[in-house]
């Protein structure tokens, strides 16, 4: 088991190293941030000054070595644009993203799981078709479009909800829905297919033959097993919601990590983009590592095969 964990940790570190390498060089392919920080018409001296200020006049390898050296010390550098440490920026936005992600996730589970169950139990009926339509729309409608429609309807026409920003529970409603719908659709589809699989299994047939009421068969025997893959997916989705709600956070001016990433990309703020991607990567790699370890603890075959 110990060897398994060490091996998994090694893979995780390797993934993070490759991620740092990729994002560091990819972000630099996008162009020169100095040309965005200076006004059109800025002199070469101004541009050179900005390069020097941010260390962009050094060879790429040196820049990367310095970046990794600082990263090892827990320093993600200073934002070019905000001139504030990236850690500080990230953690000032993280609580907002967490809040939005938790609410959106709660919504997606509360809607996705029951509708998935209903669709599976009433397969081929109106409820199944309605659930599939809900999932189809959720997966295919872009979140910015959903967001703008909601703003138009609930803010401009009805005047019920604030258009943007944060501060009150009402500010959460539209972004949480716009973000959560996609995930609710994914959870609905997975719950439906998982439930259909479980409902066709022998032990469920036996439970029914024993004369157990339908609610007990579904709620106690089928759901428990059907929910395992859904909850595993939800865990990963939660991390994604925290880090990549770029469009929703931008449309609703929600001050989260996703918007920070958008700002970083817009201003070619290399340290911000690198920081957000690496910290997001750490979360995803961390969750996967945890899942691997838990699986190995539950199922000895996994660690033995590894």
């Amino acid at each position, binding site marked *: 088991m110990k060897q398994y964990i060490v091996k998994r940790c090694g893979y995780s570190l390797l993934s993070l190293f490759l991620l740092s390498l990729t994002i560091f060089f990819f972000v630099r392919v996008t162009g020169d941030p100095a040309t965005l920080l200076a*006004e059109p018409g800025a*002199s070469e001296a101004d541009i050179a000054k900005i390069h020097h200020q941010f260390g962009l006049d050094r060879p790429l390898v040196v820049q990367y070595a310095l970046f990794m050296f600082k990263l090892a010390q827990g320093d993600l550098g200073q934002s070019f644009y905000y001139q504030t440490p990236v850690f500080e920026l990230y953690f000032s936005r993280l609580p907002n993203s967490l809040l939005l992600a938790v609410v959106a996730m709660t919504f997606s589970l509360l809607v996705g799981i029951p509708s998935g169950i209903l669709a599976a139990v009433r397969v081929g009926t109106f409820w199944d078709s309605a659930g599939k339509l809900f999932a189809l729309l959720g997966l295919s409608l872009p979140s910015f479009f959903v967001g703008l429609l909601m703003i138009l309807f609930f803010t401009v026409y009805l005047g019920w909800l604030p258009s943007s920003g944060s501060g009150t529970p009402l500010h959460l409603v539209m972004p949480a829905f716009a973000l959560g719908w996609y995930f609710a659709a994914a959870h609905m589809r997975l719950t439906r297919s998982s439930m259909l699989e479980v409902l066709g299994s022998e032990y469920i047939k036996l439970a029914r033959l024993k004369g157990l009421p339908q609610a007990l068969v579904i709620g106690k025997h089928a759901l428990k097993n059907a929910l395992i893959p859904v909850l595993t997916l939800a865990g990963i989705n939660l991390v994604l919601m925290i880090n990549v709600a770029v469009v929703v956070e931008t449309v609703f001016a929600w*001050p989260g990590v996703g918007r920070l990433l958008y700002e970083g990309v817009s201003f070619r703020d290399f340290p911000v983009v690198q920081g957000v991607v690496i910290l997001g990567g750490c979360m995803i790699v961390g969750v996967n590592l945890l899942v691997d370890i838990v699986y190995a603890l539950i199922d000895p075959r996994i660690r033995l095969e590894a």
Partner: protein
Amino acid sequence: MRSSDAGSELSPIASGPATATRRDFLAAAAAGTLSGLAGSARAADADGQMTIGVHISLAPAWFDPAETAGIITPFLVMYALHDALLKPMPGQNPAPCLAESWSATEDGMSYEFVLRKGTTFHNGDPVTAEDVKFSFERYRGAEHTTMKERVVSVEIPDPQRVRFNLMTRWPDFITFYSSATGAGWIVPKQYLEKVGDDGFKRAPVGAGPYKFVSFNPGVELILEAHRPYWRKAQAVKRLVLRVIPDESTRLAALKRNEIDIAMSIRGELAEEIQHSPGLTLKPAVGSAPYWLYFPEQWDPASPWHDDRVRRAAALAIDGPTINQALTLGFSRLTNSAFPENFEFYWQPPPPVFDPEEARRLLAAAGFPNGFDAGYYTCDAAYANLGEAVLNNLTAVGIHARLRPLERAAFFKGYADKKFKNIVQGASGAFGNLATRMETFVVKGGVYAYGNYPELDELFAQQASELDRGKREAILHKMQQIVHEKTIYAPIWQLAFISGVGPRVGQSGFGLIKGFVYPAPYEELTLTRA
């Protein structure tokens, strides 16, 4: 006000006839609660507060005048937090501010400023000559090398006076010191030495009309009136600059009175403001002319070498139609590549749209059937303008392919002189005619792909000419030559369009010529607070 509207719309249901069901009441109650709760965040509810929805993320670098890049955007914040010895103000550029007067010696080698008495920083410290000297010496923003090379020393003859001694005669010193850079904006020496540069950005202290309250990067900046302010008492007690990146969301926030001003609303969304009762469009024409540039005009093998072809391109542009379609007619059509609000501007004849004459000129130049002009390169953010102009060019026989490039890549390619054929360029940098000529026209200019010796000669003459009248004459002549040779085919001076809500009395847009943001902030008023 929308909250009360909502309430009044709902009241007939809530107090309605006996036939109303329980569900009706519940719906009405829920809606009422929602509107009430949502209303708490509205700009209108805050006493004396004006909330401005800004389109860009505010950067802490803008809190420190020493780091002013060569762009106009930091002045959005600087006009609130800080003050300068001289700065562009309504009806006067430069206008005396922290300096009550200034003078130059006969030989143009020294400039002396007399400080205004009784001005203070937000922390109560008086503004002193030491602060002026300190602010200049720590300045490291755009053109700081030019400033430092040309200013040999800063003296303080007495606590109320500051003298700048120049290395050589420099007629543009005041332009650079008062508007083209942030060198003339004053910061408190004692406070800065105490808190350091980073501390200053976290809690900036200035001598401007509004003092810093809080800043949440990428979210909002909150400012409060600094009283007494030497110029006038501020009508707005609290200013909130809230970042709302999405244009549609900014408009929705304005329509719902969550914000009082929505900056940068374009095209169809601006039209929506025109049709919304209570909302007003406020266009402000900035210092950013747009033009077509022909990098191959110095190549005898290129069609663009012939000035008739360049003139044909200029005549082909249907400015009025494009202006109406893209900026609702608010941009200023111009026949000059230089901003009309700049010092030493020469007024050219008005722009003409004459496709027939354009075709005739092309035929006379040997292109009766037009020609393939290659690429039309532009900043992708203004590709819509490019498309419209390109259609006009095609209509007279100048066929080109649109090549929109991402903004930074465009300006880098432009400055690196990598473009050919046609370039759609622009500049919003501060300065005067001489600074623009230096960058875009004369030999060695960052964006000059070639040069005309007579213009270089004239430029050198004006650079050492202290007589304002003579200098103006030289710069006028230069502009005339640029116009006659059609080095540029001007399009327009772009209007920056914003939306203003019903609570706003004076929005500040357009008060300072060429400045597209609301300023000076002490002029802003609310109709009902």
